[in-house]
């Protein structure tokens, strides 16, 4: 359960967002704007975190009492160079925030930090990443933790989907694109792996609540409902009035070691009791409608 430094939600004076042009960063930026919060959205073009003067430039932007949201990453990190590169990206951030009296830092991490385990994932589950991507986020969490005395909120979203997702990873986004192009929606094997899919707007919603309460601690961002890829594919297909069909294709590799992942989101119920996640069907519909626009 997160510790709230503001029991009643209270907009901060200003929020600086690193990675504001990305999928999740953009959603957070939009949500904060909708809440009337003053933001400084920074993307790679605004602040190159690989530049030699990145720390100094970021420090010059940050003001005492700011909230800093860190989303910037080259993701998913699949290789060792990507791992190292992502750690280097965070180095100037750590340098800039050390010694500053920020109101709060929010880091958007990933559920990939958790060990593969058949038990439902909670915020108390073991952190033992089985992928480079998970190791990257785990290391970055530690980097931030050791660089600041400000309240640190770590958000660990599971598989996020939404209309603006630039990635074409296996799941709702790819299925929707396949349907839009009139292609069959392809699932690997029987598509039986069950996963939790969270609408990007809900990730932004939890980020907003974490900021409004100046929360400290870890929160998983997941709906608590896991569903098979096959069911997701059929749900997407159903939204295209019979124009899309679901086909099974051979798996590109062996069946995943962790066939299913479930979440116990009691921590979210306790931290943000009034928040409700968008049901998958509704989220897919929203994604379709926004894409159509």
């Amino acid at each position, binding site marked *: 359960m997160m510790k709230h430094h503001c029991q009643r939600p209270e907009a901060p004076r200003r929020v600086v967002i690193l990675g504001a042009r990305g999928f999740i960063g953009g959603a957070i930026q939009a949500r904060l704007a909708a809440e009337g919060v003053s933001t400084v959205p920074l993307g790679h073009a605004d602040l190159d975190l690989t530049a030699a003067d990145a720390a100094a430039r970021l420090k010059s932007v940050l003001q005492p009492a700011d909230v800093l949201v860190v989303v910037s990453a080259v993701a998913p990190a699949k290789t060792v160079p990507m791992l190292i590169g992502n750690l280097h990206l965070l180095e100037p951030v750590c340098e800039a925030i050390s010694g500053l009296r920020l109101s709060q830092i929010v880091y958007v991490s990933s559920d990939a930090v958790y060990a593969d385990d058949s038990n439902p994932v909670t915020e*108390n589950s073991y952190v033992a990443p089985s992928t480079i991507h998970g190791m990257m986020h785990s290391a970055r969490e530690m980097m931030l933790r050791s660089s600041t005395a400000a309240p640190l909120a770590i958000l660990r979203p599971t598989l996020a989907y939404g209309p603006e997702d630039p990635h074409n990873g296996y799941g709702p986004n790819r299925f929707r694109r396949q349907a839009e192009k009139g292609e069959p929606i392809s699932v690997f094997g029987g598509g039986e792996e069950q996963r939790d899919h969270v609408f990007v707007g809900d990730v932004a919603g939890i980020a907003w609540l974490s900021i409004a309460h100046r929360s400290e601690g870890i929160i998983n961002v997941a709906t*608590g409902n896991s569903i098979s890829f096959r069911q997701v594919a059929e749900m997407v297909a159903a939204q295209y009035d019979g124009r899309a069909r679901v086909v099974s294709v051979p798996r590109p590799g062996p069946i995943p070691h962790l066939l299913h992942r479930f979440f*116990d989101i*009691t921590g979210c*119920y*306790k931290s943000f*009791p*009034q928040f*409700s996640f968008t049901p998958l069907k509704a989220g897919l519909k929203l994604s379709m409608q926004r894409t159509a626009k």
Partner: protein
Amino acid sequence: MTKPVLGFAGMTHLGLVSGICAAEKGFKVICFDPDSTRVTPLTRGEIPVSEPGLPELLAKNQERLLFTQDSTMLSRCDLVYVAPDVPTDDQGRSDLDPIDAMLKSAFDATRDDAVIVVLSQVPPGFTRGRRRPGRILYYEVETLVFGRAVERALNPERTIVGCADPEHPLPPAYANWLRARNCPFLTMRYESAELAKISINCCLVASIATANTLAEISEKIGADWSEIVPALRLDKRIGPHAYLSPGLGIAGGNLERDLATVLRIAGETGAETGLISSFVRNSRHRRDWVLRVLHTEVLPYSPDATIGILGLAYKENTASTKNSPALALVGCLANWRIQAYDPWVAGSPVSHPGFMSAARVEDAVKKADALAVMTPWPQFRSFDPQIAARAMRGRVVIDPYRVLDAGKVVNAGLDYFTLGARPLRGKRPGDS
């Protein structure tokens, strides 16, 4: 040999029940506590704890009982039990100061030939560390169960006695008293007896955790745990009295204390106790079951919901709310209105902006969007679900302990959620 005079030092739950039940066995008993707020009501026949049968025993055995604040009265005793309740914090850690103080009073006030017995729940190593030269000190395992304390004190299954040297015969006064209890008694070294108490509780927790785990599996696959339990009870290796009823985790404080003690000892000695950690995790997981049902079935659809709660005590037949699942639930529902009724827990035992203490069951369910039966009080069994159906705004009844008749709830048009089985949806007009 004449019957020994017994003393009980510490007039909280354990000492009080044990003392009165010793009088019922025909022994003269001196009940001591330095606190006048405890002793004075007892001299008037008023009992501060809720235990079925205890007031009757107190009234019946007045002549054999003496309640006093004067520790020197203990000098008349041949055998003195030191039995204050040992408080625990939120982490299950014991505060041993009260028992150390009471033990000192007992040593100071009694004759050198008097037997002193530590009855409170203490960690391994405690008793040996409190020995005094020339004095006789034993440890005895207490098996108090809130709500069944009298029954268990009068008819114990066995008595476990911790000794400095188990080869040494028990003093006549102690042996005489133990024989009067009509049960086997086992002597062992202090540390074994202290760990025996913890071992009993760990076995109980193992049963509870097993029941909870398999009840959850039952909920997922369409089995019904209540159908499985009778089969297990008929298995001699499991037994008719095994703790197989699923619940909302462990509560009350004592079991939690023992798990915390084992984990602490493991931390100090390097023993592997992953199993105990799993018990703790499972208990916390199940404790929040009602909260999860509310969040999936009620709260997203009724943002201004009122939740009716029946039962606040951690179990039936007690007013104790220590680690009560009901209070934990209420603490997570600060944004919603609560209407709660408990037969013995009065007022508002928890800080909550929208908490209303209901005077009757009917008041707790009035216009409620959901009803949660959080303590299996026997009197709730006779509550007619038709009354709830007429009075409630919502349709959700959450009854983890199966206090209500599921069939009647469903026939009343209410949805029924319980541990160990899939939810049952209420019959609506037109349903066959």
